[in-house]
């Protein structure tokens, strides 16, 4: 790899600290090019790191979790729970008699807790006024870049059970 050594016959220090003005311009361009290539290497390493992380952290299998009984939640009411881990707050909503929906309570913008605005029938983030649809978690307004992750629910008798998560797609 002779290109990576200094290019003239002079010692490296004479190359880098030339007494000629034209050589100085050369050296600064060469060094700047080297700096840009190193930056490019850094970003390639960053992309590779993301790839390794995504290969190592395959989507976990979600366990089932009893949330509450259906009658515990009044029409227009909510029930807070944590799923799939204790660090993941979620919100269960009953917008009408027969419908139960649950979403992650973390806003997809900066992770503030969203709450259910019953009068407007939407989920609202108080931090930056991001609004989400109760029907499917889609962003209605504001800075959130993607819908709220939805908790997949199953009704077993009177019991509501969380069986998985469906992360929202990019808007």
């Amino acid at each position, binding site marked *: 790899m002779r290109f990576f050594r200094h290019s003239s016959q002079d010692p490296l220090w004479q190359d880098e600290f030339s007494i000629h003005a034209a050589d100085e311009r*050369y050296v600064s361009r060469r060094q700047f090019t080297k700096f840009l290539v190193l930056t490019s290497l850094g970003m390639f390493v960053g992309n590779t790191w993301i790839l390794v992380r995504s290969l190592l952290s395959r989507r976990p299998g979600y366990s089932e979790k009893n949330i509450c009984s259906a009658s515990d939640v009044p029409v227009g009411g909510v029930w807070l729970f944590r799923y799939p881990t204790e660090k993941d707050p979620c919100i269960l909503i009953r917008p009408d008699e027969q419908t139960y929906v649950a979403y992650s309570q973390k806003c997809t913008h900066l992770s503030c807790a969203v709450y259910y605005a019953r009068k407007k029938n939407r989920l609202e983030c108080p931090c930056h006024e991001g609004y989400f649809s109760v029907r499917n978690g889609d962003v209605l307004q504001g800075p959130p870049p993607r819908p709220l992750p939805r908790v997949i629910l199953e009704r077993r008798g009177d019991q509501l059970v969380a069986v998985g998560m469906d992360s929202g797609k990019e808007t």
Partner: protein
Amino acid sequence: MAEKTSPGRKQGLTAIDGALALIALLLIVQMWLLTATLESYLAGHHEVALPAAIISGVIFLVCGGLYLFVARIDSEARQADGETSTSNERPE
């Protein structure tokens, strides 16, 4: 007290400037790619990580190639300068 630049040097500098502009352009694309990949990864879309890493690697290789080009042009210009100054020397 500006120093006179030889024609070989001027051509070399032009080529280096061109390569530098191209590298800067590729770098902007790579920055955007990294940001978009990170955003997708955090959104749970892991399928974009592989193509993004491959494209980023290709961009890095192109940047490396351009750097080698710059080094070669630099080397050739210096050699040409050396030969010119040797031939212009007055015999004693």
